């Protein structure tokens, strides 16, 4: 029996954590390099940079304001929709009511955006909060890519799209389509880069991070690229007035998204706190739901679950024992593992009944319902046991066995005991993942 080896020695999963952190840092390095080159180019050849000061400074102010009013959403990332939309519009502007910007190279745009973003973010740094350079770099590079494609790359039979835009005669809807497409490419650059940043933070797979990013960001992304194109188009008749006017819908969106993010955070806090009802009542050991949830999330990430699944998994893990609050007499140390299978199933179904009455997605209640179902029914009776339930089952067993102890001996014994039930009680894939997660956690140190 070499469970200790499996638990602590061999790391079988991809050890991507370290490599990804490097990649995320490269995003920042590239952004800094671009900003420096842009600044040098601007000094060498300022173009209409100074004569168009009103237009340029309007963009700069709004980019900075957007950066200042960035706001946190779930997973600890920050959004700054106004910065992105204004930046894209800046990159796509050819004429702003009698002010000709067709000779404005990507350099000045890059330089002004970088300075404006830094100015907007500095108050955050002054208040001791993180500057969030990685996310800023992703936004900045999206603006850069857009400017490069539109103003520099000779994509239209040897001419830049900027020249095409400036010399277009007649109805301008084809130009509008063009601008919207370029803005969308810029936005997908942003989504890709922020997926890279997010994946490096959470040691998850890059593919899953990108899918999550697209799923949660595509709607807003389309709105942002549309707004960017809108401002660039409306500036021709409206001048800088187009900026505040066309940002109105976006301000509304930003407001709604802020509210949404706040209620999401509140919701998570509420579930976490109320999951402690069982330990307050002496039904489960202190911190059991929190620890199981944390372990489940780590295993879920390791198995490459989607962001939505991870959220459901976390809530299912937090509430998996909530049915115990209705028990008259607590079971010993609250460990469901030690309870008779019939009791385990009753607690699971009591918990699921409670979860069903909450506003959580139905998947959470289903996951809680099946947490006691042994894995063998999947093979023997061809029953469907949701992946989330299998993960909760393994994480719950591990925590019941270890009991919050960090002693090496207890951890080894727990993994060994779980290995005894491998394939019969527990899903081998989940157990393998648990072993990987534990190995990673304990080589990093507590």
């Amino acid at each position, binding site marked *: 029996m070499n469970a200790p080896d499996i638990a602590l020695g061999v790391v079988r999963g991809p050890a991507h954590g370290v490599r990804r952190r490097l990649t995320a840092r490269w995003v920042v390095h590239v952004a800094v390099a671009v900003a420096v080159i842009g600044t040098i180019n601007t000094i060498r050849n300022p173009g209409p940079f100074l004569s168009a000061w009103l237009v340029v400074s309007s963009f700069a102010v709004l980019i900075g304001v957007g950066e200042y009013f960035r706001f946190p959403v779930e997973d600890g990332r920050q959004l700054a929709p106004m910065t992105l939309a204004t930046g894209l519009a800046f990159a796509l502007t050819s004429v702003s009511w009698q002010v000709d910007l067709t000779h404005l190279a990507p350099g000045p745009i890059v330089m002004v955006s970088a300075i404006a973003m830094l100015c907007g973010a500095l108050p955050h740094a002054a208040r001791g909060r993180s500057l969030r350079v990685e996310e800023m770099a992703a936004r900045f590079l999206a603006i850069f890519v857009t400017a490069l494609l539109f103003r520099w790359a000779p994509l239209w039979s040897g001419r830049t799209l900027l020249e095409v835009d400036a010399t277009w005669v007649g109805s301008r809807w084809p130009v509008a389509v063009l601008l919207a497409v370029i803005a969308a490419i810029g936005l997908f650059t942003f989504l890709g880069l922020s997926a890279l940043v997010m994946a490096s933070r959470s040691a998850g797979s890059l593919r899953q991070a990108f899918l999550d990013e697209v799923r949660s960001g595509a709607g807003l992304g389309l709105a942002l690229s549309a707004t960017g194109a809108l401002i660039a188009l409306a500036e021709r008749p409206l001048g800088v007035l187009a900026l505040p006017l066309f940002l109105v819908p976006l301000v509304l969106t930003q407001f709604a998204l802020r509210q949404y993010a706040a209620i999401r955070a*509140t919701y998570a806090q509420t579930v976490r706190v109320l999951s402690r009802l069982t330990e307050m009542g002496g039904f489960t050991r202190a911190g059991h739901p929190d620890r199981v949830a944390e372990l489940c999330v780590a295993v879920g990430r390791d198995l490459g679950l989607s962001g939505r699944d991870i959220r459901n998994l976390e809530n299912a893990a937090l509430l998996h024992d909530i049915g115990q609050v209705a028990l008259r007499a607590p079971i010993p140390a609250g460990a469901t593992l030690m309870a008779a299978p019939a009791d385990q199933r009753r607690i699971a179904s009591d918990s699921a009944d409670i979860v069903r009455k909450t*506003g959580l997605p139905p998947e959470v209640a289903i996951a809680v319902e099946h947490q006691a179902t042994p894995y063998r029914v999947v093979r023997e009776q061809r029953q469907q046991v949701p992946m989330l339930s299998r993960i909760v089952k393994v994480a719950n067993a591990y925590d019941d066995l270890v009991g919050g102890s960090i002693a090496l001996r207890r951890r080894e014994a727990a993994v060994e005991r779980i290995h005894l039930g491998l394939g019969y009680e527990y899903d081998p894939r989940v157990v393998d993942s648990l072993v990987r997660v534990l190995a990673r956690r304990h080589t990093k140190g507590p």
Partner: protein
Amino acid sequence: MSPQAAADPGPRARRVNAVILATLVVAVLITTLAWALDGVPHDYVSLAVLTVLTLGTRVVRVRVVERVAVAASGIVSLASCVLVGPVGSALMMATTILLERGAAGWRARLFNASMGAILGSVGGLTYLLAGGPADLTTISGPGELMVRVGGPFLVASLVFSLVNFASIAMIVRVDSGESFQSMFLAMLTTSGLAQMGYGVIGLLFVILWVPAQVGPFSAVLILLPLFVAQWAFVQYAEEERAHERTLAALVAAGETRDPYAVGHSERVARLSVLLGEGLGLGPAQTEALQYAAILHDIGWLGAQAWAGSDTKAPDKSLSELIARHPAVGVALLSDIAFLQDSLDSIKHHHERWDGRGYPDQLVGTDIPLASRIIAVADSFDSLTRGRPGRQALPSNRALQVVESRAGTHLDPTVVAVLARVLERHTWAVAEPPPEGAGAPLWDHDDPVMSDMLAGIDRPATAGQGS
């Protein structure tokens, strides 16, 4: 955007029919007037595109999110007043309403179509009368655009909204006899701001369509961010509802151990909100009060495990346990950011007006108002639900008991508001549980318990008052 006429055949059917006929006549007259003043629409391509667009939003309205599509069709209707002129707008609105699938009966549809034609003509005419140019290509420069197009357009959208509200208020008045004025004002306050928002976005739509020369494709660019904004609001609202449901469900789960306590937190929250409204609390304060009320006993639900358990002897004395439960609750909830305004109210919900409560023996108005409200609601709910060995009091008897405690145990102002609230709302006595076995024999919220803990030794029982 289109007013929904509830034209069901009934005793008022004839009056409703008369109104529909009158509306039709007015619609024809106004559209003819617009024709005489402005002529026929010249831009048939735009007219066709706008018609298809509006039809599209009406199809979406049936299938997906109602509010999003309402906003979209409102914006397109307003923009059409300028883009295709009064007659074009009237035609467009009437046609789209008539072509809408799955709508109400033909009379309602006829009324709505007539109203659409009136709105389109009136909107377009107002714009022209306010000095707006029919041909936007003659305008150049941001200043001129804002003054000569923006001003008249906003006036037109204001008139458009007022006529729209008035028409809905009128048909409701005729159909169900509700006051025209109150209906009109209610619509003005609830959706007036949204209508002006449609006006601003409609203007952007117009500017993008003609002066920026983008044409019909503007619809995509304008409506996309709007759909996303609305989508975010819908998400937010759904998530907030889910959050409240989750909170209530988890609190209710904690109550199941004591069959007599089931629903207690929810009832106290409901009553507290009514009391808060009676005391004139603002929305933010009411929200904090509601959360405090639903969670006020969360510390108790934990403490109860020891107090009610047969197998485990309480290792603390009961009174100590009771005295500690507000603090236990606060400690548990202190991590939740949005509850920061509610924590104090939870901590002090067992203080007494005379300063003999717990945990801090605060006196009178030193006790947070929300705590005083919860204390009244808590006592009242305790009296109106039974315990093993004591019947639930009917609400008038419970009110007497509560009133007898004003000035000693409870805040007299809040008690007075309770009396007023109970005049307007009937308060159902909590249903006794089917089997109350295993329930604790006492209730820490019972006013008698408050006296006991305050060291007041009076023979009065809850049922008798003092």
